[in-house]
């Protein structure tokens, strides 16, 4: 088959579908930012976006933005405030959904964006948590968005920047987390969700043209497959048009380079 969309476009569309109307969305950078904009301009017009910089807005910015700090994202906002105000909404449990990227993830959705190879003498130092740890701890649910590769989907992550379900069911309660946990993982190969009993990741849909074997091959543990496995819906023409409006230069979604 010939695809008329890029992988980032597919992921943005999948991310957007996770947002319900009227929800409060903690908007991150890159693809999740586009996913929020797409949702807000399609099925979730009443979604409210909160940004860790200190921004709350419930309308589209008057011009496309490259990052949440661009000035058009401040124009017409309904609140410009302190980071602590925004993070407090999160800590109080008023944020319905958020999105996080990662360099490594394990079967329980624990994410590493800090150190590859152990923090004492790391092979690679990554940028770190930013707000990701807070989103993973405090949003009602969060969605992980990342490239599906064996070196990233690991039996055990080198460092837990953003907690998922720890070592399985009951772990979040035990360590004191008040709520939440990852709800889905949107990857370049498909979509995974978490078994409500075991908290383990389960493949629920694959991208058009990708086999279950391919996904398993790129996963660092014996991957569970949902009995009702489906195909990840391709973005519609309307969705693609909207994504191009928000990313007119294709910086984020024009190719696969910025995943």
């Amino acid at each position, binding site marked *: 088959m010939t695809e008329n969309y890029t992988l980032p476009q597919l992921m943005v569309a999948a991310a957007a579908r996770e947002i319900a109307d009227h929800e409060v969305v903690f908007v991150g950078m890159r693809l999740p930012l586009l996913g929020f904009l797409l949702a807000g301009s399609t099925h979730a017009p009443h979604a409210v976006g909160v940004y860790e*910089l200190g921004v709350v807005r419930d309308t589209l910015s008057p011009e496309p933005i490259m990052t949440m*700090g661009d000035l058009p994202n401040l124009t017409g906002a309904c609140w410009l*405030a302190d980071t602590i105000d925004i993070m407090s909404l999160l800590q109080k449990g008023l944020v319905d959904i958020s999105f996080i990227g990662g360099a490594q993830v394990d079967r329980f959705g624990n994410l590493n964006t800090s150190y590859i190879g152990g923090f004492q003498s790391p092979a690679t130092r990554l940028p770190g948590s930013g707000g990701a740890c807070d989103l993973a701890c405090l949003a009602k649910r969060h969605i992980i968005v990342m490239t599906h590769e064996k070196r990233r989907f690991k039996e055990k992550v080198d460092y*837990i*920047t953003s907690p998922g379900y720890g070592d399985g069911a009951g772990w979040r309660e035990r360590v*004191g987390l008040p709520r939440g946990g990852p709800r889905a993982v949107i990857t370049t190969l498909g979509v995974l969700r978490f078994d409500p009993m075991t908290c383990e990741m389960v493949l629920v849909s694959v991208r058009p043209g990708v086999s279950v074997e391919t996904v398993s091959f790129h996963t660092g543990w014996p991957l569970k497959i949902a009995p009702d496995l489906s195909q990840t819906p391709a973005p519609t023409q309307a969705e693609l048009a909207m994504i191009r409006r928000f990313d007119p230069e294709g910086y984020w979604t024009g190719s696969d380079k910025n995943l």
Partner: protein
Amino acid sequence: MKSSKLVSLSEAVSRLVPDGASVVMGCALEALIPFAAGHEMIRQKKKSLTLIGPISDILFDQLVGAGCVEKIRAAWVGNVITGSAYNFRRAVEGGNLKMEDHSNLTLAMALTAGAMGVPFMPARTALGSDLFRTNSGLKTITCPFTGNILTAIAALLPDVAVVHVQRADVFGNGHIWGNLGVTKEACLASRHVILTAEEIVDSQVITGDPNRVIVPGFRVSAVVHAPWGAHPSPVPGHYNRDHQAFIDYRNRSRTVDGFEEWKKMWVDPLRDSRTYPELLGKERVKALALKHHLPSVPVDYGY
């Protein structure tokens, strides 16, 4: 009468940022990053600084590349639109930089504790994460009222906060608007505050709207006139984010030599913060300037 605190950038940095100081910068996250002040620290060859800030968006990377930094206490160090910060990576991977890992919330609450004059703040974040292994300012405690397990976050008390504002008077009262990040907390938590300002204005402009003041003048040690002093980060009311500069920096800083070239071009030539727009060039200044002006509706402070 009150005395003026207006000084040159060079004087402010040389007087208030000694070697070994802890400096909080980049407090509004992606906006209003005090690049001019950071570059002056590079020119003055500061050593053993501790840098504190939420994300920094390449400013910390530049200071690390120039050899000014011993330790970073931050939630994220990188380049917002391109990812990795290469000098930072090289330094950590080479064992030449101490790192204290925060999240945006733990950092904001650590500064809030410092601002409020309490030794710690309780939080519900970071529990179960490995931040506890790379940040000695995090401990778990039990709530005396609810029995909940909580994260105790130790106060941060920087020696100096460097904050870029849109306009200030010579007495240290400054106006800021847009997203504020952790600016207020950082100013109140720090022993000294340096304001770098796009404009120095008549004091009545500032005291004519005291709700926009970010920190009262008596807590500010120096005010510096630094037009375009936050470029390439955006400044609400003044200029847009210069995305290309962040991409160019990524490309240059991939190698040590490339970073040195970048530094020769953008840091070394300047002697006076007021001449930065010349270095930037008329075309770029014009391209980044606001195209659509949206003035706020005034409010009345009369009686």
